[in-house]
């Protein structure tokens, strides 16, 4: 019986158009400074920037350094600067950029490993620092007899912040991050709020203490850029202000 064949990315249909893809190239071990390489790639209305980059990697230059995995905006691998703004490559369609030239660069405020791939150690460390887990009596946590009850309304209080995929786009957009290498950053602060707002958690005070530092929560000036670039609707700016509300005594 005939099987219907696969969908191959290389299909070029009459509807496909061309753009120039400019990829920033830099290997800190060997290069003095970064430069751009230009490729002409065809795209369909659904083609994402990640697909275009991988197309280049497959057919033009195998050495493009780029991080990717899920290709569906859930793993947080593919953050980069696309036409000047931090975005997920797999969640940005070329057609929605309305431009004949698509420029991709590594995310700002992260050290470059190579080309488009950047180091995340700092983000992981700060994330760990804000104690991103439920804090309450150990025996309660380790017993698995009964669930902790939690109403849908209580879930609503934190679920938004739990959507964070640790892509780092917010940290790349934040103006404080642009100059302050010790700032906790919106990603971790939003996660601090995620756990503080969880009705099952009792670790509020210890978390507040951690972020009450000269490079802690106070270095956020509500610029909001973090929320504007977040691909998952996390709205770190909101979480941070709500968290600060606790510290200023507006909320308890």
């Amino acid at each position, binding site marked *: 019986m005939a099987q219907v064949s696969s969908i191959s990315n290389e299909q070029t249909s009459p509807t496909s158009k061309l753009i120039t893809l400019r990829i920033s190239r830099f290997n*800190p071990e060997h290069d003095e400074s970064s430069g751009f390489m230009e490729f002409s790639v065809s795209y369909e209305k659904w083609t994402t920037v990640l697909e275009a980059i991988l197309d280049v990697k497959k057919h033009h230059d195998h050495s493009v350094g780029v991080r990717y995995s899920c290709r569906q905006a859930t793993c947080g691998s593919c953050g980069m600067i696309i036409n*000047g*703004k931090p975005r997920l490559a797999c969640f940005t369609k070329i057609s929605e950029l309305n431009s004949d030239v698509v420029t991709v660069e*590594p995310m*700002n*405020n*992260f*050290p*470059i490993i190579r080309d488009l791939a*950047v180091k995340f150690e700092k983000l992981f460390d700060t994330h760990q620092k804000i104690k991103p887990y439920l804090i309450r009596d150990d025996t309660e946590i380790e017993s698995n007899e009964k669930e902790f009850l939690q109403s849908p309304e209580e879930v*609503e*209080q*934190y*679920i*938004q*912040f739990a*959507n964070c995929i640790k892509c780092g786009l917010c940290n790349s*957009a934040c*103006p*404080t*991050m*642009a*100059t302050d*290498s010790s700032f906790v950053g919106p990603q971790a602060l939003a996660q601090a709020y995620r756990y503080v*707002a969880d009705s099952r958690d009792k670790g509020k005070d210890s978390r507040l203490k951690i972020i009450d530092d000269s490079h802690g929560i106070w270095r956020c*000036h*509500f*610029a*909001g*850029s973090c*929320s*504007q*670039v*977040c*691909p*998952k*609707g*996390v*709205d770190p*700016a*909101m*979480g941070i*202000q*709500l*968290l*600060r*509300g*606790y510290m*200023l005594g*507006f*909320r308890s």
Partner: protein
Amino acid sequence: MSKDEHREGIKGMANPTRYGIERVAYWLMRLSGLGLLAYFVGHIYETSNILRGQVGWNEFLELTQTTEGHLVLAIVIAMCVFHTVNGIRVMLGHGGIGVGKPARPDYPYEPASQNYRHKIGIYSAILLAAIAMMYGLAVMFGE
């Protein structure tokens, strides 16, 4: 700041484009804060001339009560009004007021914290600053 951290640096921090009016407000807030501080220091120096008696005071007044001096003062008024109004908005925001309520986000995600209340706050800060500046100019040059 070491180069290999690949930070955007002061240019990125101070670039008010790309991210909407909230980032502009952030930038104006900084600028007006610094401007006011500069003026404030100058102002304290200026007023200290009173210790030099009527002559000294008037001498100094003459220096500042010029067209340039008035223009500077007009800008200071604008900065002061913007910084104050926006400062109040920012403080409310920092207290978690008017930044929206946490809720399940639906695609396409529109961050609740970037809402019309705060946008109105920013626009009115700018508007009030402009009006105050006009008024100040009118008062100063009107005479």
